[in-house]
């Protein structure tokens, strides 16, 4: 098989995974939120309501696509794609196992974060093009929050990068294999040195997921549906899909950076190799469950509190922590560069 064909197949696999993920995550969200609220969630269509989301996708696909009269036609059409494409591109560098990944980028971590930062552009486009005041406010809010949290998100992964000396995601995972003092897995999360970075990472990554407590851009009780107000049928579906795909990416990044990716402690490599993708997916889905749990619990933050939190607390904190962390690993010679 020629390398070009192989990459094409990998890309197609990523697209398939993303679409599947979207359907599965929507079902999971409904069930998890339902249980959190002492409801059942979908149970009627198919066994355990499993067919509910496929049916909804069908519904979205066959629904009439309404274009309001006053919209900026070009941008209105481009916006869903501009939101969807970066979310899809972000799958490229995620290492599902030592061999399962679309491409093993040397700058995989930076790539994923950069690509995800482009999502906000599409949201702004949608907000502007919709010719709707709620949409416009939603778009502006989304860009404001994304810009503010881009910086702490990028900075919060720096301790990991400083520690392992690489931006390659699979190398970062490999650095976390093995055990710590023979009992704890040698994931970065078991090392208290990484806890501040992890907390900052989670807080700023929640913004990317665009759900409560940070769903300001679509804030259903304030902005009706924010940037998505005027969108219908599959255009809306693309926004929706991208949102779920983002929560997958965020969870996958957290697993890769802090929870040891596909690695498991005490499991020999021969056993681990075939089940690595399963281990990775399981970890990611646990992370997504936590995201949904947060979503079902917390109220929404106010926009200016969010901004103040980012610029006045999070960014100074993460800058200070990088400095402290650098001193610590330099003084005690803790860094374990790989490769």
């Amino acid at each position: 098989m020629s390398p070009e064909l192989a990459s094409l197949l990998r890309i197609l696999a990523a697209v398939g995974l993303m679409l599947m993920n979207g359907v599965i995550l929507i079902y999971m969200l409904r069930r998890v939120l339902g249980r959190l609220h002492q409801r059942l969630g979908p149970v009627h269509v198919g066994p355990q309501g499993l067919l509910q989301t496929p049916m909804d996708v069908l519904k979205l696909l066959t629904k009439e696509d309404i274009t309001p009269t006053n919209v900026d036609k070009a941008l209105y059409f481009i916006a869903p794609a501009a939101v969807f494409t970066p979310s899809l591109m972000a799958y490229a560098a995620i290492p599902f196992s030592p061999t399962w990944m679309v491409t093993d980028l040397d700058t995989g971590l930076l790539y994923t974060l950069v690509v995800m930062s482009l999502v906000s552009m599409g949201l702004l486009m949608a907000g502007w093009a919709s010719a709707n005041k709620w949409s416009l406010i939603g778009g502006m809010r989304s860009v404001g929050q994304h810009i503010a949290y881009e910086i702490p998100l990028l900075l919060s992964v720096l301790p990991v990068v400083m520690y392992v000396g690489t931006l390659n995601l699979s190398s970062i995972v490999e650095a976390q294999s093995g055990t710590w003092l023979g009992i704890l897995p040698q994931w970065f999360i078991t090392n208290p040195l990484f806890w501040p970075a992890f907390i900052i990472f989670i807080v700023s990554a929640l913004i990317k997921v665009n759900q409560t407590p940070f769903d300001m851009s679509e804030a259903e009780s304030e902005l009706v549906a924010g940037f998505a107000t005027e969108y219908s049928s599959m255009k809306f579906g693309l926004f929706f899909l991208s949102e779920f795909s983002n929560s997958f990416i965020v969870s996958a990044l957290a697993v890769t950076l802090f929870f040891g990716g596909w690695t498991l402690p005490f499991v020999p490599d021969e056993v681990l190799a075939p089940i690595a993708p399963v281990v990775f997916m399981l970890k990611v889905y646990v992370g997504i469950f936590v995201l949904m749990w947060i979503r079902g619990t917390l109220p929404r933050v106010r926009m200016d509190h969010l901004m103040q939190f980012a610029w006045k607390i999070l960014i100074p904190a993460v800058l200070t922590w990088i400095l402290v962390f650098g001193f610590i690993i330099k003084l005690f010679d803790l860094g374990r560069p790989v490769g």
Partner: protein
Amino acid sequence: MGESVNTLAFLVMALAAIGGAVGMLTSRNIMYAAFWLLWTMLSVGGLYLLLSAEFLALIQVMVYAGAVSVLMLFVIMLTLRRREDAVRSLDFSPSAALLAAVFLGIMYYGISNATFPEVALLAEAPNTADLGVVLFTMEGGWLLPFEISALVLLAAMVAAVWWTKGQDRR
């Protein structure tokens, strides 16, 4: 096949970059212009990627496409008093045309007379780690200029914050 794919990709990216630039200059809607600019930035990022400068490509996308363009759009939206102000009428200015013609002439002269070094691409392109080494650890590296520019940017940021929030804003 790899070579032809590369050539094709280069052509697509280059045309996209040029097309975006032209689109930016000719569109009467300032919002469209900003989005065309974003398009150009992304295409240039793709060109960097073709040159195996992936770190530079990513920084290009992040800084220019992700941050600068968004800030421009943000400022445009904030300062537009009315939505229709985004569309400007076409006004022809002879002096601007003259200036553009002079600029074009100089550029043409410069490029046609320049000699480009014939350097083959390295088999193993410098990666991110090498860039870091050159910036920070190498003897006679760029650490001091880097820090100075950081300081300048910080000062600019503080000034911007003071400028926008200083007077009658709470």
